């Protein structure tokens, strides 16, 4: 589609330039700082940060789809719910912890993502957006009508520790952090891998991709699979970090808000960018908890502001540069 969606992706060649190395060093420092947070801050802060990390992963999953596929999903809440409910149901039925149920959730997410991308494989991306929206709207009624498994309105608890005996509060902080770092690292590897390049090529120059033997259908389905797998991972981690899973956490709004978070992070696939999106999704509802009606307004304004800024800022910059004395 357009280059504005991928402001930075075009520039970086395979060997890493100095700027990218500095960025990577900064990310390492950031991760170390985050790892030290529980020694400084207490209880409610580490809890909120754990949820932020999980939301950041979900934001990444939406951004991957936009950046690598040029597609919008308004239904990633569904795939997050797949991961979250896998964790909760497997714990309740089989008594296993998130370590064992997380891969199951991710695998389910990948499979379902591919299954939903398949019908729209040959046609314009709006169809994917519409069918994912229908998915998000159908999700709450599916959860509530399968209440034997899902616990219906009340939802389920997730309480099994990863490391038995260790402090649960700390585990609910470190598991999301580790997952976030792992996803961000994997995405940076994907950018430099053959498969990643093939997907990007199929998105930006379909004809060239065809010539090189990358089929567009494959690219779209693969991107959706990767993205939905990450979304399911985010859901699993969120269930563990917040200790509950309930249908009210996975409505159409959830899915739209995930897209908002992705736009606010300017579709960035790096860890700091994802943190901005995740923090936005976690903090705004807390600040506005007294008047819920302002939340959609805030998100809507943020969405438009970021999109319009991304559109006009480069043009204004060019205008200023063209006149030597400035404006």
């Amino acid at each position: 589609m357009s280059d504005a969606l991928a402001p930075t992706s075009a520039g970086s060649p395979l060997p890493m330039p100095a700027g990218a190395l500095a960025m990577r060093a900064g990310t390492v420092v950031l991760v170390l700082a985050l790892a030290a947070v529980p020694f400084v801050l207490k209880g409610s802060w580490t809890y909120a940060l754990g949820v932020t990390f999980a939301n950041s992963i979900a934001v990444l999953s939406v951004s991957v789809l936009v950046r690598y596929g040029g597609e919008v999903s308004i239904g990633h809440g569904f795939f997050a719910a797949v991961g979250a409910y896998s964790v909760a149901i497997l714990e309740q039925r089989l008594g296993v912890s998130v370590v064992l149920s997380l891969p199951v959730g991710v695998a389910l997410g990948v499979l379902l993502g591919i299954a939903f991308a398949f019908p729209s494989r040959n046609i314009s991306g709006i169809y994917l957006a519409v069918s994912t929206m229908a998915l998000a709207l159908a999700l709450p009624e599916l959860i509530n009508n399968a209440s034997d498994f899902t616990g219906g309105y009340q939802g389920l608890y997730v309480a099994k520790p990863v490391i038995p005996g260790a402090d649960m509060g700390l585990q609910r902080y470190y598991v999301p952090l580790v997952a976030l770092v792992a996803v961000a690292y994997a995405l940076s590897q994907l950018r430099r891998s053959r498969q990643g390049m093939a997907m990007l090529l199929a998105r930006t120059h379909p004809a060239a991709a065809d010539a090189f033997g990358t089929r567009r259908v494959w690219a779209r389905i693969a991107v959706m699979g990767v993205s939905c797998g990450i979304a399911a991972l985010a859901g699993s981690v969120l269930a563990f970090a917040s200790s509950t899973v309930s249908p009210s956490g996975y409505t159409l709004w959830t899915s739209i808000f995930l897209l908002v978070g992705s736009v606010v992070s300017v579709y960035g696939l790096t860890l700091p960018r994802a943190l901005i999106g995740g923090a936005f999704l976690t903090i705004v509802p807390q600040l506005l908890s007294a008047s819920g009606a302002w939340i959609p307004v805030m998100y809507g304004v943020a969405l438009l502001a970021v999109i319009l800024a991304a559109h006009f800022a480069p043009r204004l910059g060019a205008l200023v540069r063209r006149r030597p004395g400035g404006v």
Partner: protein
Amino acid sequence: MSGFLDSLAYDLFPLVWSGIVTGCLYALGALGLVMIFKCSRVVNFSHGNVAGFAAFLVYGFSSGALMSLSWGTAVLLAVVCVVAIAFLTYALISPLIAESDLTATIATLGVGLIIQGATLLVFGADIVSLDLPVPRFSTSLLGLRITGYDLTVLSVAVVTIGTLFFVIDHTKLGIAFRAISSNPFAAEVCGLNLRRVHVFAWVVAAGLGVVGALLIVPTTFLSATTVAAFMLQAFAAAVVGGFASLPGSLIGGIMIGILMNLFTFYVSPEYSSTFLLVVILAALNVFPNGILATVSGSRV
């Protein structure tokens, strides 16, 4: 066996009839989406929120919550507000349309969020009821119970859609609309004004949304999410009809109306959104370009 046939005749025809009636409303919603999509490649995700806001405005203006006007004046005022919103939305996202339809589509979600929040802020999350001022009569024809509401919906839908198709087929603006839908670049080279046609599409779509919302609300209650949920049916209708076909969305709307009615009656009302999802996925598999698409190959 004859008992089965009897019950079929007893249930099926009324179900199909009421399906056609609500289907016309889904078609009105779908036509609004398709109008905008055809000429600008933007899917307007704020359509349902704006239409719902309009229904709330009519309620607010006529019930005394904001003002106490007559129903007709309230509708007129609401239409003015909604046209203003449509115009503002277009003005806001028009710079994006030329750049990327995807970005513009995401921007309409932002507009939808703001309108949704505004509805909640002004009218609260309560459920209200909003009736149509139509004569309450009902008659029986060939075993069908036909109410004043049914006839109102049908006649309004026929007149609205008929007018729309006439405008698109026979007026200068309509020809410009068709030209821009089939090839925006060539149309602009020929001197057609892209913006004027876009504004026309947005304003007409908003009007169609208001008509659809006002007509659908009496069958249910009005809450901040009712009309947005009704829009899922409109989206499904647009997908079934092919997103770029106006007659397709009309047929898609009526099909969705009938299918929904049959499904909720014979299977379960609890899975209606899931059913729509299945319809959308099935339609994408079987008719990727809509039911009216002609099968065509391409030469390499």
